[in-house]
């Protein structure tokens, strides 16, 4: 399929887009929450993939190759926007405070849509203290239960680099959360 697309076969390229867009969207969703940004990133990934099809040697899977392109494209988009990590986490909203109170001390298992939105906002607030690369490592390992090896494959980083990033990110996020809990 990759070879057919490389030769200019439109239907083969369309099939690649159809089959792998959920995966590319999933990667882009780690970096962006706005649909427009996720779609922009995903489109860029497929156009880039088409121009780089010649470099795909067929040793790994197309999905893995696209995941790596997606990760690098999203990181470049964030770098291009010159977004820097925040130095501190801003104050909690009432909803976030309620969420923390509800989940502190107990293993609250409630998963309503509203609650998960509050938790997602809270996560973004905590992740804002990290660099995009550290965010990526932490979200994959602690959020999606990915292994160090899986993260290394998806990003092209070495396993030791992934470990260092995850350690640093986890420590920063935990400290930011402790500050938030002390501010209540």
């Amino acid at each position, binding site marked *: 399929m990759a070879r057919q697309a490389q030769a200019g076969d439109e239907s083969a390229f369309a099939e690649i*887009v159809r089959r792998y867009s959920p995966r590319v969207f999933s990667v882009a*969703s780690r970096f962006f929450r706005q649909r427009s940004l996720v779609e922009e990133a995903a489109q860029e990934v497929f156009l880039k993939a088409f121009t780089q099809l010649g470099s795909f040697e067929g040793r790994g899977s197309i999905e893995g190759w696209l995941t790596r392109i997606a990760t690098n494209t999203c990181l470049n988009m964030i770098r291009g926007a010159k977004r820097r990590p925040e130095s501190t986490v801003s104050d909690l909203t009432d909803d976030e405070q309620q969420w923390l109170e509800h989940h502190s001390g107990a293993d609250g298992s409630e998963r309503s849509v509203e609650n998960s939105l509050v938790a997602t906002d809270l996560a973004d607030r905590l992740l804002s203290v990290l660099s995009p690369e550290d965010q990526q490592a932490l979200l994959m390992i602690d959020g999606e239960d990915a292994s160090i090896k899986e993260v290394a494959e998806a990003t092209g980083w070495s396993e030791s680099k992934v470990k260092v990033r995850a350690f640093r990110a986890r420590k920063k996020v935990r400290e930011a959360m402790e500050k938030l809990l002390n501010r209540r």
Partner: protein
Amino acid sequence: MKDKHIIDILDNTSIASPSESELSDIQAHAQECVSCRDAYEAARLSAKVLQSRARTKIEPSPFFQTRVMAAWREQQAVESVPAMLRLWRSARTLVSSMAVTTAALAALTFMLPAQTTSLTDQTASALSAESVIMGQSSDDQMTYEQVLSTIYADDDDAR
């Protein structure tokens, strides 16, 4: 283990999936140590919100494939045009404006020297020896004959 702080364990492994022995160590120590209890609580809540964030996925819209294919065709069309033609298309405005500017500068180069020379002559005549001697401004200039007659008339008067 009770006496050993657990912060390193918290930062080294995902609190979402600790092994049973790690979890019992963490909980045993957290009961005794206030700072580690706070750290454990923060780590547990962080993992919870991160899992919630990771579940937030945006699905591709039904039009996404059409959009990508349209962009792909556009890209193909651009690439099929020869490079020199593409270069000309993007640069023709700049090249045209540069040509107009060059023509205007050339025209000015041929017209300006004449004006400059006449201006130089005017300046020179304004500072001519006669003007200086006669103490006259350049506005009321005398002819050569007038100058001579003025000089010789003065000589005649002196005699």
